[in-house]
């Protein structure tokens, strides 16, 4: 506890009270402690405290004042148990001074973050198209891009929760990637790699917290493929304790298309909390394929906001919750303009009685979103007795001329399918493994890059057969 440090956070209680009349819990000591600690740590390495970053931090700390740690009484955390974080000693993640060479891999358009810090030495940006930008927000010269970045840093995102704001306060920098109008970056995708290297050993109750933050702006009529990976450094041997609290914002400008693959394979002792905030201008397309198998607590908050008519949005997710794992997707798609088309497919496997899957998929079709065509489907495979899944698909439709469908199914493996394998001489274990894996193939097959799709598929297969 360092009361003097906290003072800055408490400077504006009046403004807070005015804008959040219901915010009575101004002081959740646990939250303030984390905020305090983050503020301390950012000031220690922020040589380049740009005005963008300052704006972001101010807005975040402002919002944080009214936020308390979520409990099961808060709807978004009704089923998601965050007590593991609350009972840990949270420290700022300090990236190791020497980075092991196993990090780097030859790849173009690669941006590597270690514990939230952009690592130019582990990145490769030489083949970015002319006019593109990738780097710190501090290095953006005044102009339209600067205005866009500034606006998104300062505009409070009303759906942003405590974790969104902790990231805004604790992010060591805001990394911006800009792809100019009409560019195509499809065959050589933009690779965003997030490593957690500052990990604690198990059993110490310490949790280094990192807050990577990225904003991707894809210009008008541009086509961009993004591969976003959350991994951990090999030195952690797959079981390091840490908390990765990331934010990725994507702005798809008019007529553009972003195809986004997001793969989360962090340590089974880690917390992975992530926000993906996407805004789609008119006639744009956003496609997300999400594969999440890592983490002790993995929570993805996905918010897609439609900014103009005729958008296409395709969201696919495949989660695997094994023993002592929570896999949670909270998604919200807000359609406010005519003729939006959206499809969402969520699939998860819970393979252990101590595994827990959560899906809350909200699709909001507002009054002016006429002729929306929205579909949502969620399927869960429960493979163990007492395995838990809390599934809440929900459509909120206010417009009247819309086509919406949704469905949810929870099942075990099909007996008839298992028998078909056996009848062809394949033993039960092999048959089960093949069927369990096949459940996710529908999503894995949507990863757009063949070698990458294969390597992710192989890792998922290995994981599922090992259990």
């Amino acid at each position: 506890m360092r009361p003097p440090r906290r003072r800055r956070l408490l400077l504006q209680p009046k403004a807070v009270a005015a804008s959040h009349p219901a915010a009575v819990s101004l002081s959740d000591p646990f939250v303030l402690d984390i905020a305090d600690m983050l503020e301390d740590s950012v000031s220690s390495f922020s040589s380049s405290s740009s005005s963008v970053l300052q704006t972001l931090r101010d807005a975040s700390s402002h919002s944080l004042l009214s936020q308390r740690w979520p409990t099961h009484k808060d709807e978004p955390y009704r089923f998601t148990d965050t007590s593991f974080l609350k009972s840990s000693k949270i420290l700022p993640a300090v990236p190791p001074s020497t980075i092991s060479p196993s990090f780097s891999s030859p790849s173009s358009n690669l941006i590597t973050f270690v514990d939230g810090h952009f690592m130019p030495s582990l990145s490769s940006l030489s083949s970015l198209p002319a006019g593109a930008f990738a780097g710190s927000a501090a290095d953006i010269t005044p102009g339209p891009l600067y205005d866009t970045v500034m606006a998104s840093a300062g505009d409070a995102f009303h759906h942003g929760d405590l974790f969104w704001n902790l990231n805004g306060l604790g992010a060591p920098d805001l990394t911006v990637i800009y792809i100019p109008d009409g560019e195509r970056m499809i065959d050589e995708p933009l690779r965003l790699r997030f490593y957690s290297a500052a990990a604690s050993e198990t059993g110490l109750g310490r949790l280094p917290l990192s807050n990577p933050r990225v904003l991707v702006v894809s210009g008008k009529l541009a086509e961009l493929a993004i591969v976003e990976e959350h991994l951990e450094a090999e030195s952690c041997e797959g079981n390091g304790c840490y908390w990765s609290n990331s934010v990725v914002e994507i702005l798809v400008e008019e007529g553009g298309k972003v195809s986004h693959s997001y793969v989360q394979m962090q340590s089974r002792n880690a917390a992975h909390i992530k926000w993906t905030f996407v805004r789609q201008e008119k006639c744009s397309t956003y496609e997300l394929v999400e594969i999440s198998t890592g983490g002790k607590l993995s929570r993805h908050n996905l918010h897609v906001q439609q900014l103009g008519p005729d958008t296409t949005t395709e969201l696919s997710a495949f989660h695997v919750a094994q023993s002592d794992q929570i896999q949670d997707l909270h998604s919200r798609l807000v359609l406010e303009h005519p003729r939006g088309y959206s499809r969402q497919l969520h699939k998860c496997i819970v393979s252990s009685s101590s595994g827990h899957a959560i899906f809350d998929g909200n699709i909001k079709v507002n009054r002016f979103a006429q002729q929306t065509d929205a579909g949502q489907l969620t399927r869960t495979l429960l493979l163990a007795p007492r395995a838990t899944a809390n599934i809440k698909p929900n459509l909120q439709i206010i417009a009247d001329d819309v086509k919406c469908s949704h469905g949810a199914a929870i099942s075990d493996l099909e007996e008839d399918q298992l028998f078909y394998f056996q009848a062809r001489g394949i033993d039960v274990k092999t048959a089960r493994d093949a069927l369990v894996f096949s459940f996710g193939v529908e999503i894995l097959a949507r990863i757009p890059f063949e070698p990458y799709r294969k390597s992710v598929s192989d890792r998922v297969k290995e994981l599922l057969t090992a259990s």
Partner: protein
Amino acid sequence: MACLCFPSTTPLPRFPSLSPRVSITKIFPSSISLFGPSRFRSHGVDLRSQATAATLTVDYRTPGEETLDTGPPRILLEVRDLSAIVAESRQEILRGVNLIINEGEVHAIMGKNGSGKSTFAKVLVGHPDYEVTGGTVSFKGEDLLNMEPEMRSHAGVFMSFQSPVEIPGVSNMDFLLMACNARREKRGEPALSPIEFFGFLSPKLVAVNMNPKFLDRNVNEGFSGGEKKRNEILQLAVLEAELAILDEIDSGLDVDALQDVAKAVNGLLTPHKSLLMITHYQRLLDYIKPSYVHIMEAGAIVRTGSFSLAKQLEKEGYRSVSVA
């Protein structure tokens, strides 16, 4: 997959012509009981069928083969008084089925809808929906009922399903390779790589007249009725089973497809392989001539006869052959 390229100009192999066949007269093995339990014998049908059976024509499918087994026929499958219930509802379906199939024989089972034909076939391959409550089944002298379904497959029993299940997410190629290598492993043979396997598979694809594109698709997913049946025969070709039980392999097939499938099945038959077909129509039996035709009724085989029994059925319906 590059290895899946298949030149479209590959000529189809010539199939053995269906008409000229070697026919021999075979004495019906006297030790074999082909009849239902005694309650059916009282109807006096058994004698007639035995008389018919005694002058049966057995057609081996290998053209030009002049030398035939001189030794006694070897029993492949022997079913005695088999009864079975639906595991969940305990409803009795099979009520004492008796059947003997020798090596190299072709049998057909006909019977009304719901008489228990598919159930019989599925019980033979160990489907978990059913529980055997009595009787015995031996295959090549071994107790079939004691084996897990995969062991029955390894032993050489294959069943093609009336409605094969779809398996989304598993490619046909992977499935066939898994099945093939499971069998090879069982026999102590080294596993085939996907490329080796494709070499092994190519002539079989030609034999069932199946487009290699189907290998990349998921098992039976979105296949038409006829495509599913062809796929079953492809699996049979890969597994080289000694006893193939084909449940309504002809249903849903157009004329050309029926010929394709029949050709493929005939092509697979050797003097040591046997076939048990379940069908409603004589049409299939015109292409694949059975040595014996059995009628199933209310869970038992109530009559056995020659091909002419199928003809009689086609003309006069079940009433003419029924024992009830």
